[in-house]
């Protein structure tokens, strides 16, 4: 394959170098506003230690991003050399890139929930039992090392400028911040097209009904198209956390616990198949079925729902009933 000989299109001056950094003051202001709203209205919840853990994870993720982000940037520019088309900063390219980046995010996010190798880094974001704006900032430190950017690489091969894709990645991250709240209810027709607090509460919920759903970044249409959309229902209030909830606020433990879990499982693996399953199987996979995957949990819940009325819902209320994830226990 030959390198594309055309020069890289110049990035317009209006494109900020880092959208997320620009948004940090707004993040801080909105968290303060949400805390006050929660205090006054009792809608939603905060806990100081939980927020400290989330915010420190967010701070650490920016440092980790600086240390490991080069992997993404180098990969992006390397692939961009072999791009199929020369796409400039035109209005139609911006529209296409927005949709392309959002679709790539959907698939990254879905894989990050369905395959343990990527879940090991993404689990951090789901590890709080609270759901508020500070939870939005509870971010992974190992995402780039796990090549979580892989689904974006085809965009560079098509020919979208690296800075354009990075710009929309930033826009998507900033958009996703405000939807981590219990203080905003349903939003009418906006819910048809866009990811909203209600849709994302479902995504963070551990109730079996809501497992493996609503992976969208900005547009919820991808979940509707690919069959992963589940609406929030009033009679099943979301409960937040992971399958095996953490017993720590320690940021280092939060960042690496699932990687340690994989390593421990691999130590006990007896075949190549088991190795593969522990790394790339769904979270909760074990050769003997001793732990449960989301599919198994959901199937059990469905069975209980379909059972005669007296048995219905037995054992599915727990405040710590869990969802995605796998832990050696």
């Amino acid at each position, binding site marked *: 394959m030959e390198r594309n000989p055309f020069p890289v299109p110049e990035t317009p001056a209006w494109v900020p170098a880092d959208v997320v950094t620009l948004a940090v003051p707004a993040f801080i202001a909105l968290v303060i506003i949400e805390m006050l709203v929660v205090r006054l209205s009792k809608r939603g919840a905060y806990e100081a230690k939980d*927020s400290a853990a989330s915010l420190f994870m967010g701070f650490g993720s920016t440092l980790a991003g600086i240390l490991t982000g080069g992997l993404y940037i180098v990969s992006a520019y390397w692939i961009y050399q072999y791009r199929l088309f020369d796409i400039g900063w035109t209005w139609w390219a911006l529209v296409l890139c927005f949709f392309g980046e959002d679709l790539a995010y959907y698939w990254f996010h879905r894989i990050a929930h369905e395959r343990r190798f990527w879940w090991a880094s993404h689990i951090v974001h789901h590890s709080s039992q609270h759901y508020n704006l500070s939870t939005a900032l509870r971010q992974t430190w190992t995402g780039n090392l796990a090549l979580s950017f892989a689904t974006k690489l085809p965009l560079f091969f098509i020919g979208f400028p690296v800075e354009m894709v990075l710009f929309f990645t930033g826009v998507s991250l900033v958009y996703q911040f405000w939807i981590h709240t219990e203080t905003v209810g349903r939003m009418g027709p906006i819910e048809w097209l866009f990811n909203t607090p209600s849709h994302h509460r479902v995504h963070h919920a551990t109730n079996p009904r809501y497992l493996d759903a609503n992976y969208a970044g900005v547009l919820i249409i991808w979940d509707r198209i690919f069959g992963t959309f589940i609406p929030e229902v009033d009679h099943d209030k979301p409960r937040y956390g992971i399958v095996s909830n953490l*017993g720590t606020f320690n940021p280092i433990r939060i960042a690496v616990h699932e990687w340690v879990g994989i390593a421990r499982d691999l130590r006990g693996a007896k075949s190549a198949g088991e190795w593969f399953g522990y790394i790339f199987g769904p979270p909760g996979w074990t050769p003997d079925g001793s732990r449960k995957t989301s599919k198994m949990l959901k199937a059990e819940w469905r069975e209980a729902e379909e059972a005669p009325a007296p048995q219905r819902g037995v054992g599915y209320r727990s405040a*710590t009933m869990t969802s995605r994830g796998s832990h050696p*226990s």
Partner: protein
Amino acid sequence: MSPEILKFLVIQAISLGGVIILVGLAWLIGFRTRARVLDEWHVQKLAADERAGPTGAIAIDALGRVALAEIEPDKVFVVKALGDKLTTRVFSRAAVAGVKMYRPKGRGIGARVRFSDAGFDDFAIEFDSREAPAWIERLRRGARGK
């Protein structure tokens, strides 16, 4: 120092300052409720909700910070207060990495329990009695690290 590095350091300092302000505000306006394990019935209910199976012997920390319940044949149900939430987990006995007994000030006896799970901190469970419940002794004898 190059302007780029200086700019980076300023941004990080502002971010860290923001974290400290937010956590301080959360603490100041009262988001510091502590969850507690109330009694054996509470533990049994949490175990049922978690579909952990019927509980055997139960030991509850004198301050309600943690509870341990025996689940047949070889499992341990743990309830641990984590801020305003109670975290519940089922561990196999093999995951109990260590149980160390000690004499806490102002209480009868305590046990420091460690599980081989990176996502779960070690914790202390203390009792007003001079002797630990028999079930904690059994757990200690079965622990890998003792």
